[in-house]
């Protein structure tokens, strides 16, 4: 048994399979950042830091005639979303019920996916520098009208090209912006989604938690999500009525090329 302590939970094997399947189905559509950045790992729960290949000077040395430097690393963060499930519901699932109420798990999956997107695109104070805050490019305002999106996205792509950043490019859209894009047809009925895809030559992803939009290069090597323990369900405690579980992951995020992305404000 590992640190997730899953064997201690009053949940059958079939119940665990149900929870794992439900979690995957809920998480995969919402993990927008993972669809655009490089993924390294998973390197395990005991992996604690990412090598940056950099050093910091030290004020003193431990003896005469020697010098020293300190290695700089990026510490991994742990992200966790707790939730509760009814034991009666899980017992009914074992009996064959096909409408098990897993709302607690569904909410937790959405929360942790949103938090991961925010950390990658906008940062996590004191822990992670996000793509948007690292980017040196001026943040242009998208505005409320979606008919201006092609101009802004094309402008962002052109700015990346000016900096020698090749494509294809991907676009992460916040919830409101994504809804606006998919429901809009331009003059002549041409879907805005397809027009933007042609400009980007890459994917457009739904990224709940993103404020506005972010255009990123997909050429690789610019943005690295390093996973320690990938998203997992663990066991916390239980009583007669409820079982308390959590979704958890550990990761670091490193922007290697800040100029390889352009953030667009809402």
């Amino acid at each position, binding site marked *: 048994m590992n640190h997730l302590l899953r*064997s201690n939970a009053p949940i059958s094997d079939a119940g665990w399979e149900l929870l794992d399947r439900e979690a995957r189905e809920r*998480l*995969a559509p919402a993990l927008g950042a993972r*669809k655009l950045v*490089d*993924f390294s790992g998973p390197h395990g*729960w005991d992996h604690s830091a990412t090598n940056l290949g950099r050093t910091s000077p030290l004020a003193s040395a431990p003896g005469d005639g020697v010098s020293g430097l300190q290695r700089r690393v990026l510490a991994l963060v742990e992200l966790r979303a707790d939730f509760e499930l009814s034991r009666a519901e899980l017992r009914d699932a074992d009996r064959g019920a096909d409408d098990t109420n897993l709302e607690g798990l569904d909410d937790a999956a959405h929360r942790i996916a949103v938090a991961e997107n925010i950390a990658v695109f906008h940062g996590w104070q004191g822990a992670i520098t996000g793509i948007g805050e690292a980017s040196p490019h001026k943040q242009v305002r998208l505005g409320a009208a979606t008919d201006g999106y092609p101009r802004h996205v094309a402008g962002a792509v052109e700015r990346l090209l000016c900096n020698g950043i090749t494509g294809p490019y991907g676009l992460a859209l916040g919830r409101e912006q994504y809804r606006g894009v998919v429901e809009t047809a331009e003059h002549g009925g041409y879907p805005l989604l397809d027009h933007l895809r042609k400009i980007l030559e890459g994917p457009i992803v739904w990224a709940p938690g993103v404020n506005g939009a972010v255009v990123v290069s997909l050429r690789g090597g610019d943005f690295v*999500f390093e996973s320690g*323990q990938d998203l997992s369900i663990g066991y916390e405690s239980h009583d007669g009525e409820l079982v308390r579980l959590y979704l958890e992951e550990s990761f670091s995020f490193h922007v290697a090329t800040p100029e390889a992305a352009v953030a667009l404000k809402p």
Partner: protein
Amino acid sequence: MGFDQYHEPPGELPAATRTFARLCASLTEEAEAIGWYEQRIAIETDPEALAVMRDAQGEEFKHFSMDLEFLLRRTPPWREVAQGILFQPGDIVEHGEEAEAEAFEGGASGASGAYEDGSLGIGGLRGASR
């Protein structure tokens, strides 16, 4: 440029599956190369040529083993079956039957999770359709 390693439309496959297919194709190529060198070595009489080909075949052994290890790491049920067969003395077929029964009929506990580390196995999603 050929994309023969894909049996389904690549655009519909997740990135992890495309990577998996590439490594499966690579494993096949390395196995073929090992077989080809084995045949060449069997008929070659020039000692210097033999030495070169034995060295080259050794490289293929390494490549095959690395491909296999990658695939086993990414496929816990395959790894479990392989652990019951590889490097075990005795009857290979018997070990195969036992390993298969243990991996798929006894079944890994749901509490252990489908993946070795207990995670959901989501990983990177580059190439996912939406």
